[in-house]
């Protein structure tokens, strides 16, 4: 839902970032307001995951120029955990397995870290179990997954559902979902998309990184951006995604040449 007067949640200006001294992001500009859903598409290696990790604060990525303001303040002044507590959520493309750490305990610690920042009371083990049962419904996840170690031995699709469960528990302001749809079967895709739609409100915003129109049939984006060579090359409405489905990315090369980038 586009409302020009809605709060500007994320303001990315000319963002440059490197990994191992290799420039990856080369001037990203993007503004996200409350209530909006943005789809970010683009070829493999164009920098989509890099953008998401830079926003979440991964230590391997170095910001070399530009700025990001989150609800008015400098995002890069904040530690990764502080960003999370303030409502920045990253659903990972490849969620990490953490053997020996119980999923339930992990979810509780994470949820409480966010809750205390929101001024909500922290939940003890018992109250949390009730709370999490409710959220499990959002992704129709089997409670048995709570008893296991974080993501350990989860199938690709199960890991993605676990990400959305975390999103439901953390009640984010800006959720960045990096290819949450890949690896999901047709039913799971609907369930996960349903979950994301359920969690979207006029107060928060979602950045969906995806390769496929399938997801965008379920979650209607307000904007579609195409990333190429570390920048956002083109922005349009939902029609842009439909067009990409037909034409592919061949035009990207021409446009990069035209802009003098490649």
């Amino acid at each position, binding site marked *: 839902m586009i409302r020009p007067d809605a709060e500007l949640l994320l303001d990315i200006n000319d963002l440059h970032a490197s990994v191992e001294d290799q420039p990856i992001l080369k001037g990203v500009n993007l503004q996200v307001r409350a209530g909006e859903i943005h789809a970010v598409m683009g070829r493999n290696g164009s920098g989509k995951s890099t953008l998401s990790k830079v926003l979440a*604060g991964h230590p391997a990525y170095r910001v070399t120029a530009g700025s990001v303001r989150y609800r008015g303040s400098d995002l890069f002044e904040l530690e*990764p955990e502080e960003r999370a507590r303030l409502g920045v959520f990253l659903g990972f493309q490849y969620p*990490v397995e*953490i053997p*020996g750490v119980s999923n339930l305990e*992990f979810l509780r*610690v*994470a949820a409480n*870290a966010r809750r205390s920042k929101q001024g909500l009371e922290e939940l003890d083990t018992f109250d949390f179990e009730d709370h999490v049962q409710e959220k499990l419904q959002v992704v129709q996840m089997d409670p048995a997954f709570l008893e296991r170690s974080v993501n350990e031995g989860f199938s690709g699709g199960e890991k993605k559902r676990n990400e959305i469960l975390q999103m439901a528990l*953390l009640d984010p302001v800006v959720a960045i979902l990096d290819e949450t749809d890949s690896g999901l079967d047709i039913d799971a895709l609907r369930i996960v998309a349903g979950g994301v739609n359920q969690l979207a409100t006029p107060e928060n915003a979602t950045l969906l990184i995806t390769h496929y129109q399938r997801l965008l049939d379920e979650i209607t984006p307000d904007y579609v951006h195409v990333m190429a060579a570390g920048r956002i090359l083109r922005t349009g409405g939902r029609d842009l995604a439909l067009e990409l489905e037909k034409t592919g990315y061949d035009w990207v090369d021409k446009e990069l040449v035209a802009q003098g980038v490649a």
Partner: protein
Amino acid sequence: MASAELATVQEHGRAALERLGLPTRRQEAWRLTDLKRLEALARLPLSSAVGSSALPPAAAGVLRLVLDGQSDPLDGVALPDGMSVLSTAELEQVLGHTLDRCGCAGSWPVELNHASARQVLALRVRGVTHPLELVFTGSAGLTATRVLLLVEEKASLDLLQVLQSDVASAHSHVLEVHLGQEAQFRHGLLATADGQPSLMALLAVEQEPRSRYAFTSVVQGWNLARVEPRVVQVDGQATTELKGLAVSQADQQLATHTAVRFDGPEGELDQLQKCLAGGRSHAIFNGAIQVPRDAQRTNAAQLSRNLLLSERARVDTKPELEIVADDVRCAHGATVSQLQEDELFYLQSRGIAAADAAALLLRGACQEVIEHLPAAAEAWGPLERVMTGLSQ
């Protein structure tokens, strides 16, 4: 049980120690050992006082025996059905047999124990009986304890050994276990200390066919520790599971030397050893697997996973595979790494502060082994013990 029968064993042990002298660096099995500390241990007088330490209440249904190397652990104890004490004649027959079979008779830690132990706790187990907990306490000086268990055919036993040296300066322990056919033995060793005392523990287990042995060791906080589980599958066809965790800090040296030999076909081994080394500490793992010609169709897997928690810590890990049989599956692997940046970041990205994330990962790494301890371990808060070691 009593000292009289042990007089000859003691004499032999003392003579052997004289003859052997201290181990040297030229001996492969002792190459990495801090010999100064070993020498200090060897010079300790035998402890004479009876130590006392506060113990947490035993878990319900668990039979707890306290061994201090001095008093009779069975004093005032009624053994449950299925558990009985070996007669002197029986003991004379079997004592040392498993050590022989496991190829560790005459080794330095065994002779040290022979020379020092004043008693042997020797039990026979039939059928399914109560879980057993052996708590070892000591006082200043060297405390030596020796235990022998005969787990009969089809019998099943859960044993937790707790060594917590808050008072003793050093502990020498030798355990011999014979598992009859189809016997089940779940065995835990929880050996935690505060950084001062030393530990020499040798655990020899003989397995008859179709028996199952699951051993979990958790070792933390000794100035010098050497834990040696030695297993022989006398006719193969048995199952052995070894899980080990060693957590070292400061300038501690913790060594785990395991040896599993398959003296027959179709044996199975599943082994995981983990070392977490912080400070300037040194963790050592040596994992011998012997598969002689007769041990066809053996299936063994050994994994050694190690975490270096500081730049000055050191981990030495070495598989020692001697495989002669040709139709054998033997997988092994070793990794040494630091806490994974991606795991830390994943936790941080969920609002968990960096230090808490690191602690959570370490708990997880320990828990992977600790969760396999027998149920009786719960009463001792094993995870908390190990984590205090890490946060010092």
